[in-house]
C-alpha cells in the first residue's frame, strides 16, 4: 500500500504531541489514527487496533443531543466535514458502550492538500464542564 500523503502524516505527528483527543479519518470515514488521549476515550489502543473501518468505530460512542436524545450521524461535525469538506463544531454528549455519559465539544476540519485534494478529516474532542 502506498504511503499516506505528507499532510496526513503531519496531522498524525501533530496529534501525537497533543494532550487533547484527536481522531484522523480518511475520506470514507475510516479511522486511520487516534492519539493517546483519544485512546482513553475509546478504551482501546491504536497499537492494538490499528486502523478501524467506519462501521466499527462509529458504534463505540452513541451521540446524544443536549437533552439526551439520539443525534443523527449527519449532525455530527466530522460526518459533516467528510460530506462538505468544511470545518464544523458542535456541543453534544456521548455515551460509551458501558453507558457512561460525557459532555463534549467536537471541532472537525478537512485535510486539504497543497494541491487542493481532499484527503480526510480530523476531529478534536474537548471535554466540557457543565454549569
Amino acid at each position, binding site marked *: *500500500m*502506498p*504511503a*499516506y*500523503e*505528507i499532510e496526513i*502524516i*503531519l496531522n*498524525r*505527528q*501533530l496529534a*501525537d*504531541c497533543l494532550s487533547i483527543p484527536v481522531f484522523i479519518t480518511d475520506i470514507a470515514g475510516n479511522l486511520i489514527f487516534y492519539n493517546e488521549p483519544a485512546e482513553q476515550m475509546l478504551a482501546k489502543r491504536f497499537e492494538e487496533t490499528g486502523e478501524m473501518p467506519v462501521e466499527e468505530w462509529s458504534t463505540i460512542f452513541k451521540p446524544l443531543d443536549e437533552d439526551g436524545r439520539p443525534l443523527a450521524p449527519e449532525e455530527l461535525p466530522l460526518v459533516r466535514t467528510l460530506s462538505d469538506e468544511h470545518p464544523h463544531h458542535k456541543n453534544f454528549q456521548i455515551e460509551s458502550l458501558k453507558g457512561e455519559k460525557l459532555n463534549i465539544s467536537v471541532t472537525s476540519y478537512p485535510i486539504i*492538500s*497543497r*494541491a*487542493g485534494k481532499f484527503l480526510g478529516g480530523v476531529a478534536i474532542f474537548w471535554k466540557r464542564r457543565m454549569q
Partner: protein
Amino acid sequence: MKIKLWGVRGSIATTGPDTEFYGGNTSCATVAYGDYVLVLDGGTGIRQLTGSFYPAAKRIDVLLTHLHLDHIQGLGFFSPLFDVTKEIHIWGPASSSQSLFSRLSRYLSPPLFPVLLRDLPCKLHLHEIGNSQFEAGPFKILSNYIIHPGPTVGYRIIDKNAVFTFIPDHEPALGEKGIIKEKKWVSGYDLAEGADILLHDSQYTEEEYTHRKGWGHSTINDACLFGSLAEVKKILLAHHDPSHSDTFLDDMFSSFKKSAGDIPPAVLAKEGLEIDL
C-alpha cells in the same frame, strides 16, 4: 544510468581547506544516459557543468527539489540557460499560491540577479509538479511532496536498469516520537522503496538536531533508519552542514557506525563522486 555529484553541501556554499575533501558546493547532481543529462537541483555545484562537462543534448531537464537558495543559487550560472540552441525544462514543486515562474523570478531578477528569468536566451519551459509521474529523456520519474518547510519534493528516477532516489532535504522524523516505523506513515517512503541508491539529507548530529527540530533536516541515524525502512541497497549521506569540516564529518560518521545496527551500506556523499548503475 551514470550518477555524478556536483554539490553535497547544505545551506550555503562552503569553500576552504577544511571542506576540500567532501566539497563545499551546494546541492546538485546529474543522472546521465548516453548524451542525455538530467540535472537534479541548481545549487552552486551546477556551475561546474561547463567546458568538457557541458551537456551535449539539445534538451536538458532540471529537476528542483525546492526553491531554498542552496538549491537554486547556481541556476544563474548554468551556461545552457544562456545558450539559444538549448531547450531547458525546469521542473519544480507547485505552491498553493504562487507560480513556479513567479517564485523563481524572485531570485532571477534585480536586485538579486541582473538577468530576468523571462529574458534567458534558451527555450525555457517550466513545469509545476507535486505528487506526480512524468518522463524526462530516457527516465521515468516519480515526485512526491516530502516533509521540509515550504513546497518540497523528492525524486525517484528510474531507467531500465536501476532506481536512484534523490531527497537531499528531508525531515521524516519531525514529531514527538521521530520516524513512525510503519511504512505507509513515512514521508518519502514511496520514493525510496527498494532503490539501488538513496541520496538523503544527514545534516545534523543528534545533539544539533535537538535544537533544530522543524528546520527540515535529518541526522545520520534518521537518514539510515529511513533507508533501512525503505530497504534501499545503498545510502549516500548528503547535505553536509556548512559548519562541519571534513574531519568533523569523518568523526561523526565513525561514531555513528560504531553504534549503528543493521542498516544498508552507507557512505558520506562527496563532491565529484561518480556511480555507474
